[in-house]
């Protein structure tokens, strides 16, 4: 598949640590990087059992606030 235009955003903190990337797709979507929430975690934290949930790093939230 030929690559269509997309933008990857990377936020770097003052200590040079880097947040997970944010992707802006050409179809308008914003795609975030995270880890899927397991059934065990859903049960333990009373999270919706069926929804597509991801767990993201707090640094990524900072990146979203600063960059988007």
């Amino acid at each position, binding site marked *: 598949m030929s690559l269509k235009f*997309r933008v990857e955003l990377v936020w*770097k903190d003052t200590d040079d640590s880097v947040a997970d990337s944010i992707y*802006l797709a050409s179809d308008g979507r914003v795609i975030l990087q995270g880890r899927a929430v397991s059934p065990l975690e859903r049960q333990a934290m009373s999270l919706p059992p069926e929804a597509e949930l991801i767990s993201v790093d707090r640094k990524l939230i900072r990146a979203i606030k600063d960059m988007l």
Partner: protein
Amino acid sequence: MFLRNYWYVAASDDEVTRKPLGRIILGEPVVLFRTEDGAPVALENRCAHRHLPLSMGKLIGDTLQCHYHGLRYDKTGVCVRVPGQDMIPPSARVKCYPVVERYHWLWIWMGDPALADPDRITDYHWLDDPNWGAKPQYLHVKANWQLIVDNLLDLTHLAFVHETTIGNSALVEHASVKVQRSHDNVLVTRWIIDQAPPPTFVKVGGFTGNVDRWQIIDFTPPAFLRLDVGATPTGTGAPEGRRVGGISMRNLNAITPETESTSHYFWGQAHDFDIHNPATTDKVVEQIRTAFHEDVAVFEAQQRNLELVPNPPQTDINADTGVIQARRILDRLHQEERAAAAVAPSVAAE
């Protein structure tokens, strides 16, 4: 609105001679000249007596004599002679600005002189590095400096503004773009893989097939943009760091605000191929100059529209990401500089 506590390029080294050069920088009139031993000097370009630009005067030794009534100023801006009187009023002085000569450019500090650390001058070594062919250039632009910064941070415009030189549609339709933002820097990295080279690359690089092309834009405030650009034949490993069989160039930009609506655009193009051949340097620079004149037409048309309707609403698209990040950094730096300036008088009074 200008950031003052930064080094800016005031002139190219060969512009500053024993003939005073007048130039407006950040809205202030500045006169540049060299002393008899060749050291560069920058003074306020306005006689303390009746405001004539001192650049209309002449050098007498290392003093600058005003063309109007003959007051003379030394290289620190202090008046050392008033014709027809012995007493020199203490107020007869003009501002003196720190200057440093580096990379074939003359750098000036328009802010607090106590903060003028030459180590803070942005690196443009490619302009005088023996391992690169290079040539500095200058354009005067009738547009606000931020329009030029915006332009250099979003190179999708190459596909439309520069289709006869450095652009083609691959830049928009087949590019992978990464925007890295840190505290005082934005780095935009763009790869265009296995696409046709643009006309300029064919002319100076001799490519006959598709290329892997990169554009890495390094933004440092207030208006320094250093572009690492080039291409290699497709599949030879440039994305992995093996830049062989192609061309690599640095497009080096230092924009100095003249006024809110005009800019000094200092730029240069450095190349890593055929470096000792001035004809190659000229050919490369000519291609880029052609493209930059196309940009200037765009900036000046934007400026005219912005003067008709100031601060109109605008729509952002994905390609603006680098531009938006740079503007956010600049907004923060403006706020910080204003806050520091507001505090400074009370600190001084303590």
